[in-house]
Each structure stands twice: as C-alpha cells, then as structure tokens.
C-alpha cells in the first residue's frame, strides 16, 4: 500500500532535480522551467496531504500555487524577452552587471 511518505519522498526528489536545473542550466528559459518543476513537487505534497488528511485545503492551496506560477511564468518570460532583445543571449552567467 502506498503511504504518505512515498509521495513526500517523490516530491522531495523532484524538487531536488528542479534545484539542479536552477543551479546549473545556462539558459534562462530552462531555469524558469526548473522552477515550475519545483512548484509542481510542492503541489504534489499538498495534494498528498489533502488526500491523506482528508481536507480540501491542500487542493485549494494548489489552486493558488497555480495562479502564482502562471503569474511568475508570464512575468519571467516577458523579462527574458526584453533581456534577449538587448543582449542576444539567454545565458544568466553573462548577465553580471552587479559584479564587484
């Protein structure tokens, strides 16, 4: 039988993978995707809890997470577009205006 912590561990692993993406990818779009992945890991946790504790709040929270994720993706992509316009590149490591 599947217990709660199976889901939790699964989401932890997915989250970690998303973190890898955020840390190492050198393409802003993929970094954004990895963030979406992390958000999904969290959503999975929410749903698992709401199922195993039998309360609707988890699902509602997922609803809100989705709203926030949508907003975040939209803004992020807009920023990426304008950045790409100015410097024909998507590499976050080339954007170091704040370097010492």
């Amino acid at each position, binding site marked *: 039988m599947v217990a709660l912590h199976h889901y939790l561990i699964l989401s932890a692993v997915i989250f970690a993978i998303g*973190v890898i993406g955020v840390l190492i990818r050198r393409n802003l779009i993929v970094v954004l995707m990895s963030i979406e992945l992390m958000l999904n890991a969290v959503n999975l946790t929410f749903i698992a809890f709401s199922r195993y504790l039998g309360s609707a709040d988890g699902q509602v929270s997922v609803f809100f997470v989705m709203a926030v994720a949508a907003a975040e993706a939209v803004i992020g992509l807009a920023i990426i577009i304008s950045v790409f316009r100015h410097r024909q590149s998507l590499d976050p490591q080339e*954007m*170091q205006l*704040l*370097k*010492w």
Partner: protein
Amino acid sequence: MVSPEPSSVAYDLLRWMPLIPLLASGFNLFFGRALGKQTAGALAAAAVGASFALACYVFWQLPAHGIWRDTLYTWIESGSFQVALSFQVDALTAVMLLIVTGIGFLIHLYSLGYMAHDEDRVRFFVYLNLFIFFMLLLVMGDNLLILFVGWEGVGLCSYLLIGFWHHDHNNTIAGNKAFIVNRIGDFGFILGIFVLVTELGRQGIWTLDFVELQQHVKMLEPATITLITVLLFVGAAGKSAQLPLFVWLPDAMAGPTPVSALIHAATMVTAGVYMTARLHFLFILAPATLALIAVIGAATAFFAATIALTQNDIKKVLAYSTVSQLGYMFLAVGVGAFGTAIFHVFTHAFFKACLFLGSGSVIHALGGEQDMRKMGGLKGFMPVTYWTYLVATLAIAGVPFTAGFFSKDLILWQTFSHGATGLWSIGLITAGMTTFYMFRQLFMVFHGECRVDAHAKAHLHESPAVMTLPLVILAAGSIFSGWLGAPEYLWGSRWEHWLEPVLGVSEVHHDSVSTEMIITLLTLGVVVSGFLLAFVNYRKTGAQTGSQAGGGLFYQISFNKFYVDEFYDLAIVRPFTALASFFARIIDPWVIDGTVNGVATTARRFSNIWRYLQTGNVQHYAAMFLTGALALLAYFLGQL
C-alpha cells in the same frame, strides 16, 4: 488689583486685520513687479488702511469689559497642552491696534513719496506689509506663543528693512547687529516662556493663554515668578533697546527713514512695553523684578539722553532720544504704572514718528544728507516740515498741553508718588536734557544761516503733499493725543478708566493734588532751563556746532557714546569670533570630519574585501542560498 472676569465673545472680523496686510504682501511679492511700482505701493498702503478702518470699528464696538476672540484652529496639541491660533482684542490690544495700524497707515502714505525714486520699492512695501502683519500678530495673539511668533517676525522684518539698501556693506552689518542683539534678548524671552510653561505644568496647568495664565499664576512660588519675569524682561530689553542691549537701535538708523519712524520709534521697539503690560499680572507679583526694571529704565533714559546731547547725525539724535523715551516707559512699568507706560507709548508714537518723518523729509530734501552741521536755516525752504517738527519737539520736550507733557509728567509723578525719589530725580534731569538736545537739533537744522553745500541747495524743496499730510496729522496727534490722560487737577484721565478692565486700577494716589502740581512745576522749570541752554548755545549760526574742541572729557565720552560699542567688541565679539574660528579651523576639519571620514574609510576597506563575494551571477547566489538552507535543515535534522 484684581480685574473683573472679562466676558470673551467670539468675533470673526478680527482675523482679517492681520490677514489683509499679509495677503497684500504675498500678492506684491509675486505680482508686484507686474503690477507696477506705484500701484504696488498704493495697494500696500490701502491694505494697511483697510485694517486701520477695521481697527477703528473694533475700537468703537468693543465693550468696556469685553474680550473679543477669533479662533482659527488648534495649532499645537500634545496631551493636555493645547495652543490655538487665535486672536483676542481687549482694551489694551485695541489701543495698540490703533497705534500700529494708524501710524502704520500714515507711514505707508509717507513712504509712497519718500521711496518714490527707489528702484525696488516693491520689495520695500512687501517687507513693510509683512511687518504690519507680524506686529498685529504680536498685539492680537491671545497666548504667549503667538505673541512670540509675532515678536520674532517683527525682528525679522526689522532686520530685512535695516539692511534694505544692502549694496552698502555697513547697512548689512547694522542689520546683522540688530538681529544678533535681538537674538540675545529673545533667548531670555523664550527661556522665560519655557520656565513659565513647565512650572505651571508642574502644577497641572498646561496653558499659554493669557486669560488662563492670569487665573493660575498665583499658584507659582515667588522665586519662580521672579526668575520668569527677569528672563522675560531680558527679552523686552533686547526688543526695546534697554541697557545693556540698546546698542543695535542707533545703528538701525541705517534703514530708510520711514522704517526708522515705524519700526524703531513707533511700534516694534514698544513691543517690550506691551509685553510687560500684557503680562502685568505676572510682573506685579515680582517686586524685585519691578525694581530692577525701574532702575534699568531710569538708567537707560539718562544714559541715552547724555549720548544724544552731542550727536551730529540728525537720525542718531532721534534714535538715542527714542532709547531714552523707552527708558521712561520702563521706568513707568517699574513703578507698576502699566497704564501710564502704555499711555507714553501712545503719545510717543505720535511725536516720535512725526520727528522721524520730519527728519526724513529734510534728508529727502537734501538728497540724503544726514549731518546736522551741513544743515541750518531750512525753516524758509520747508515751512510745513518746520512747523510740524517744532510741534513735535515741543511735545517731546513736555511743554504744557502737548502730549509729551501729560504722559511724561504722569510718569514722573507716578515715580515720585511711588516713593522712588532717586529715580524721579534722574527722570527729572533727563527731561531737561531731552529738551536741550531736541531744541539743539531744531536750531541746528532749521535756524541760523544755511550751511548746505551749493549743489544740494540748488534743488532744495518742500516735500510733496503725500509726505507732508502725514506730518500734519501726526503733529496734531502729538498735541491732542495726550489730552486723553490729563491729571486730576485738569479734566482728569480717560485713559486709566479705559485700560482698567485689563490692567486693573493703578494704585496711583491722586490724594495730594498740590504735591502733583508742585512736581509738575518743578519739571517745567527743568524743561525751561534746558530750553534756555539750547537757545543760548545754538540759536545763532551754530558756529561751534560739533566743534569737538569745545567741551572736555565728558564731551568726548558722550560724543563717542561711552565707547559701549568698542567695549562690546572687545569683551564679546572678538572672543566669540576667535572661538568660532578656532572651531572652524581645528575642531571641524580634524575631529569631526576625521571621525566621519575615518568611519567611512574603514567601512570601505572591509567592503573591498567582502565585495568579491558578489559575483553578480544569480546562480552563485542561488547556490549560497541553498547552502544556507541545507545547513538549517541539517541542524533541524539533528534536533529530530
């Protein structure tokens, strides 16, 4: 002397008295140039005229025991301490209103002529209106704080107007001097206010309102009251040019003559007297202070008079005589005759303004010449000025049935009847000297043969009507304004009754009319002798005028004003500037800047080390962040 509880009535008209001049001033400030110089001046004069009309109306309407209030809004409110921006008019204020707006109006008219050829007349009228506004604030404010605002405001305007012709460096110096000396006085004044508020607050009464103060000052202990009153009097001495703070007033003559007439003779310098009268309920509780005031007043009167004897600058003479007259007023205050002091303020406003304006008209005619040795025989050239000047001189000298006669004799009689015989004798001598130096001036300026140089003599002329009209009015005033306060053996004083509701019944004993008459006769004698002395010396050509050879040591001392300025310069100004320059040269650059820059430098050194953490690469930051999170997680895992 407890006054019947005055009935305070709300009355919306009052606020317009100060506001109209303020609005006119603001309007001129922004649109005056566009308006055209003549129109701007007319507007300013009209504004003051309007508030003069209001003042008359209020004066006639005001019931004997009434106080009219006009509260605009609550200005400060902290806890139970509340200060409202509100005006009040009672008998005392009404009188001051008449003086300020009336004399102010006349002097505005006069200025239209006097400043006709000046380039930035507009600025002049802006300042003048602003001064009227602040002066009205001062006399109408119903609590100490508003009075203080007006107090500072008139100080500011006086500074601005003294330095009005700022192209001449000396004028600006004179302005600064006036301002700084006033600061010293104001410092004492505001300290007095602080002490008063805090001490009353300790009793549980947080207020600055005059009426409430009058009810509650009883609960302060005498020592405190003495301290407060002394501090307040320091302020008054500063503003009203008493010893030892009188030095600014003579220099203040650097300003245009109308300014000298309005601010430095008629209104502002009497603010100190007004303040003491306004707070009489406080002062009469401090006999020690009153004694001090009386002594200082008498001393000032005498001292200034002695200086005035030998001055050759027409305005300087008047300036010192002003100081001396102010001394008289404070002498009256000192003997507890506040009503009489205000009465002298009233009469003095007329004849001193008249004198100043007359001198102004002379200076105007001579194209800026102020040295009396270069005048003389002007009688024929400018009759109106001469006759008005003569009247005013008689008035200040105290010739019977002129204003000066009534007020000054009243002061002397009060002093005598108060039992201060020494002070009375000083006053008596001063009266003689007053007569002397005034007639000396009259003779030097108007009589004898004309010593005016040819160039100026060419266009020697009587002043235009707009200037002479105020002279006439003021001259009339300097005769009849005194009749309000006639002594008992004549038709008796209206004045006392008018001010009783505010100042209470003065304790002048009109018991021995005979004594009073004797005193008066004595004064007359002194006056006449002073006149004879002047007549003998100066009636003729004024040959030895200003011949410094004549007269000995005393003459030199008097001529050099007792070296007071030099003394202050040595004792106070130089050490002060030396200290300041020391701070500026040593402390500020080395200690203060050193500290500040040192801190900054240290910070920068460290930042130069740490800033290498800032790679500007967002992923590095994320990695750091993750590391921290990992550490926290590991810690909690350990806790599990």
